[in-house]
């Protein structure tokens, strides 16, 4: 190398330093900044307004269609990035907590379920929304949705989530089997118990009813459903919970109506058994309707195999025969684009948008008056929602301020009782003691 082309150490350091400084300056400039027309020879930067919304994978296309159809970006100048949130609450909460502790958030608006509401709201991670909700929004909600929102979407008298997906366990039954045997669909606890004699054939693995009751939030759903029918909240561990547990036990071991193997099954296994003609009727979430109607099950499917009835009435009366669960939109406090997030959420929960949303997908179906009025009346899901709403069978989902922890406590001891590992009294004592500890923490 000749002297003229050799780079001295000092020169090299200067060059490298200049390059590094340039790179550093470039990286700290706003990531979404874009250069627009230069004015008087000086480049002018403006920040493109944008917002990130996280939805489940199943709702991505619906959200895309909705924003496209309503031209949100065109109207507001805000670019919306749709990102996928984790499918499970465990993964999602870990992601959010880590980010919030670092003073940021992976997204601005999030679509989230009941199980995350207590955790996120009690940790003060969610933004109060009352100031940005469209006028008249609550009047559009059904009374049941308002009641539900007061319990599950409000903290310290402030709304932190506005629900858009509103669904409840459905009472599915094999109309063909019931017609064949000339019996009516059970409408009370006693009638459900009596179905064991009618349908259960253990030798062939056929049961009157079955559920997905494996631990990990599955069992808790059923415990809450039955306790609500008994007229109480399982987290109170009162007489109603005792009645509910005893009833479930009797359904399994005395009346042979409920398959005890339910305790090892999740919803996929439960659905599989129903479609394999092993179950006469069952409680299941609406997604089973889509599973049954899917191409995979075309050979099996007929409408009379997936008939829908009103849920059975327990000692608590008609009003608490079933309960809804919901998903809704909220804003994380540490969101990097708060103003844009507020605009987007306000837009999404407006009456006109809610109706449009239902039209792009039933993920946005709920009991808002405007939505139900515009929903296609010949659809099975809409008919079910109307049937349950009109019959007044929808109660409020049993609540606990530390929901995820409390349901784990409930499941541990209830599962032990239902598999004969402890007595009912021990189970209740155990649950009470653990919940008391939880409150004292």
């Amino acid at each position, binding site marked *: 190398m000749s002297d003229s082309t050799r780079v001295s150490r000092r020169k090299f350091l200067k060059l490298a330093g200049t390059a590094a400084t340039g790179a550093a300056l470039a990286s700290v400039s706003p990531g979404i900044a874009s250069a627009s027309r230069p004015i008087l020879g000086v480049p002018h930067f403006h920040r493109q307004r944008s917002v990130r919304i996280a939805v489940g994978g199943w709702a991505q296309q619906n959200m895309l269609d909705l924003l496209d159809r309503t031209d949100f970006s065109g109207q507001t100048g805000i670019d919306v990035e749709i990102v996928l949130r984790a499918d499970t609450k*465990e993964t999602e*909460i*870990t992601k959010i*907590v880590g980010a919030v*502790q670092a003073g940021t958030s992976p997204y601005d608006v999030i679509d989230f379920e009941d199980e995350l509401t207590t*955790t996120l709201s*009690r*940790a003060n991670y969610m933004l109060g929304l009352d100031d940005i909700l469209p006028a008249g929004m609550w009047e559009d909600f059904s009374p049941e949705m308002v009641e539900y929102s007061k319990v599950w979407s409000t903290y310290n008298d402030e709304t932190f989530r506005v629900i858009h997906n509103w669904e409840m366990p459905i009472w599915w039954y094999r109309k063909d089997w019931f017609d064949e045997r000339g019996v009516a669909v059970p409408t009370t606890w006693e009638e459900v118990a009596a179905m064991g004699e009618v349908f259960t054939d*253990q*030798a062939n*693995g056929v049961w009157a009813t079955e559920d997905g009751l*494996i*631990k*990990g939030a599955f069992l808790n759903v059923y415990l809450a459903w039955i306790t609500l029918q008994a007229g109480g909240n399982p987290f109170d561990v009162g007489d109603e919970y005792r009645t509910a547990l005893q009833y479930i036990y009797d359904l399994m071991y005395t009346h042979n109506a409920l*398959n*005890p*193997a339910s*305790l*090892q*099954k*999740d919803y996929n*296994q439960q659905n*599989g*058994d129903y479609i*394999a003609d*092993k179950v006469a009727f069952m409680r299941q979430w609406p997604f089973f309707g889509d599973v049954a109607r899917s191409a995979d099950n075309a050979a099996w499917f007929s409408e009379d195999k997936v008939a829908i009835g009103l849920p059975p009435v327990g000692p608590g009366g008609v009003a608490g025969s079933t309960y809804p669960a919901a998903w809704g939109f909220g804003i994380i406090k540490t969101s990097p684009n708060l103003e844009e997030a507020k605009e987007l959420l306000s837009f999404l929960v407006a009456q006109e948008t809610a109706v449009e949303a239902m039209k792009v997908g039933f993920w946005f179906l709920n009991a808002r008056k405007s939505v139900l009025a515009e929903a296609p009346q010949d659809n099975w899901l809409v008919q079910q929602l109307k049937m349950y709403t009109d019959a007044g069978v929808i109660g409020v989902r049993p609540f606990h301020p530390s929901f*995820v*922890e409390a349901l*784990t*406590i409930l*499941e*541990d*001891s209830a*599962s*032990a*009782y*239902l*598999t004969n*590992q*402890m007595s009912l009294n021990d189970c209740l004592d*155990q649950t009470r*003691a*653990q919940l008391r*500890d939880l409150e004292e*923490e």
Partner: protein
Amino acid sequence: MQTLSPDRDATATRHRLLLQMPSKSTWRRYVLFLLLVSPAFALRFATAAYPLAQTVMYSFTNYNLLKGTNSNIGLRNYERMTTNYGVEGALSFTIIYVLASTLLELIVGLLIAQLLNANFKGRTFARTINLIPWAIPTIVAGYAFRWFLDDQFGLLPNWYSSVTGDNLVIFIDPTLARIAVILVHVWKDAPFMAVVFLAGMQGVPLDLYEAAKMDGANALQRFVRITLPLVMPLVITMGLFRIVWSLSGFDLVYGLTSGGPGVATSVLALQIFREGILFFKFGFASAISVVLLLFVGIIGVVGLGLYRRVDVTY
């Protein structure tokens, strides 16, 4: 006797001291040693020693990320562990699970290794497919076996039903559920043990077997008297590793039974996951972790002692 003057005495002392002082090149070697060792030391300190100390410290607090609490509560977390139904159940099953599955894995691994060490056609193929269970992600194996053992669709309950006429519902019986978890664990990890033991067996000198044959030892005697003692250090090492890995893993239990029925198949690592990652109760989760750490420590010490006893050379 020759005597030294005070001046000469002082000079001699200085000389001796100079002789004891490291030379310049030795100093350089020391510095170089420190420079080379310090990154590894810093890494281990940051990734092992510090988190460990921090975990022990947290175990005496009520640190809860969501509630914002973080004050010293002494031994309250440890007291709570004695009354917590989930932790109690997990503690008892953890001991059973780890010991039983490790023991079975060692035995089954040795037997498979012995088979794979034999000379037969298709040996390479057999050695390859042997590893398939081990290559399946544990969580996938957990979910797959949930179906395999399902009362309606499961192959095993179906066979049982065909033979006995009774229904087999495994996961609602605490004992059966525990056995199922242990056996699935063995099915999954014994092949890996087998490969390691196979490598050990291949290192055993053949002349030992030939000499034993000449002396009239049968196959079982050759296995018990030659193979087993010579691979014993490997067995102990692998047993030690398996115990520690089993103690820290919960994915199989999570996928297969979620710890149920009740808490019959729950393990300490699952409890730590629940308390720490799901509930963000770092204080309580740390206390359980410390107990787990003690287990690992005790097992490590016992294992090392055993290893020294059976160390062989040939």
